[in-house]
């Protein structure tokens, strides 16, 4: 192989959104674009797709759903993201339930837009 490609489009932060519902993923992209303009947004609607993207690119921020569709799938993405060099503070897990996750994972309750927005602003100053 020719080694991993780790692209970073000049200074535009690149964000990966992971959710198994494509419709919700579209809305999510639109929302991020409104919250944080000038961001390069990519989406993945399966764990595998997310892992492939993380393997081939460098992301400034990854926001993943926790259950896709099984609870815990988001943890695989967290590990892959961590291994690829994404700082823990730049990984956000979204959950519709109150799952107990390791302390190192930033968990935001799905629907808490205020908390999500401030976490995004903090991760992408």
């Amino acid at each position, binding site marked *: 192989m020719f080694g991993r490609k780790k692209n970073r489009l000049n200074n535009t932060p690149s964000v990966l959104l992971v*959710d198994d*519902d494509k*419709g*919700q993923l579209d*809305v*999510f992209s*639109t*929302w991020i674009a*409104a*919250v944080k303009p000038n961001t390069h947004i990519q989406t993945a609607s399966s764990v595998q797709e997310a892992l492939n993207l993380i393997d081939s690119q460098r992301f400034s921020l990854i926001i993943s759903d926790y*259950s896709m569709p099984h*609870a815990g799938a988001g943890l695989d993405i967290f590990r892959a993201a961590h291994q690829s060099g994404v700082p823990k503070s730049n990984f956000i897990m979204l*959950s*519709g*339930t*109150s799952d*107990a*996750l390791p*302390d190192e994972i930033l*968990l935001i*309750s*799905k*629907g*808490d*837009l*205020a908390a999500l927005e401030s976490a995004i602003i903090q991760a992408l100053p």
Partner: protein
Amino acid sequence: MTNKDWAKLESDMPNFFDQIPEELYTEAQGDSLTQAGFDFSHAARLFFFISPSPIGLHEPIFDAQQTLVDIKLLRANSAWYRYKSSPLPEDGSLASKTRFKFEELLPHLRKCWDKPDRVHTQRFDISEVLSDPNSPYQFPDSNFTSGYQLVSHWIRISAAEDRSDLILEFSNDLDRAAFENYADQGRQLERLLTQRQQWLGDASHELRGPLNAAAMSLNVVTRREDLPEGVPATLRTAERYLVQMSDLVRDMFDTAKLEQDAFELATTPNIRVHEIVEEIAEEFAADHDILSLRSVPDRSITATLDRDRIRQVVRNLVSNAAKYRQEAKQATIALTLRRAGDTYFEIIVDDTPNGLGMNDTDLEALNSEQPFWRAEAAKAVATGTGLGVQLSRKLVERSGGEIIYESEFGVGTTVTVRLPYIPMESP
């Protein structure tokens, strides 16, 4: 009497009775035992025999030679003992623990096996037995079908003149049925609880996804600056209700989890508590229902706690203070954070004097921890489910603290959340 015999007795009861000569049987529906010649005034009555007895589940114990050496009480039927107002015997060996001396009993048992004097059989339809509300057959864990026949065989063994007769009671497998049913129901219940947990988790996830997407869509529009007058406010209201619905779904899920003790807190040390208080104060600053929200946080307090959960509790309390206010008045809320000794700190939400307040009956109901309970006056003022209050209480208690309500109807409520700086490790 050998193991084989006992096994036969246990597994194939009719065969045991088949061995008893026909003329010994009297069978009567409604006949009393006394009428049938069973005189209890001169007999020791033994209910407790092998497993089918309705008063307990027993097991014979054999030695290496397969000789009966003991009978073990596996489980007494507590309903029976309540019915008879006698203390429930402890499970275990009957040889050492019961009112009967096993050694004395053993020859009688053997005699009974060989040649009982008389057998009296009573049959009852279980529905008849169950119609007595105090019947010991009202096992909380049994589900007898209405056609079930309760059959009791009474066996009298004459004793020597100076001794009491023995009367043994064998009933059909009610207790065994109940016992197996009980274990089965236990497994079933566990499976159902797991399923419910799974279902609640899935449902919560599935419901919050679309709600979140709807809230996000609205949020994208409310950010625009070119909206006609009045539209942003309307959209924000819609967004707020979506978030409220999403929180409600989460609260329902959490309440169910807490009830099952399947809830874990994600505690972090060195949380600056005043930040939580200030965040909530900021969140509600623009609320039109609130006239003034005074926040007096002690900025020196740091604690080990689940930040999100405590924020959820404070948010719930402030939200209630804003909601439940006197008619035509805006809420005045004081939000205080202060030390309470070396071990605890307190977050106080006070909505006096414009609050709705609660009377003593309300306070009592509130403290009785019923989910979905809401004060009558509160129902008239705003929508809600009452889940938030109970969830808050449980979250605070789980964090090692307590919630104290002081209230005066028509004046308002002071809610004190008292939390330890560092909660005790759970055992």
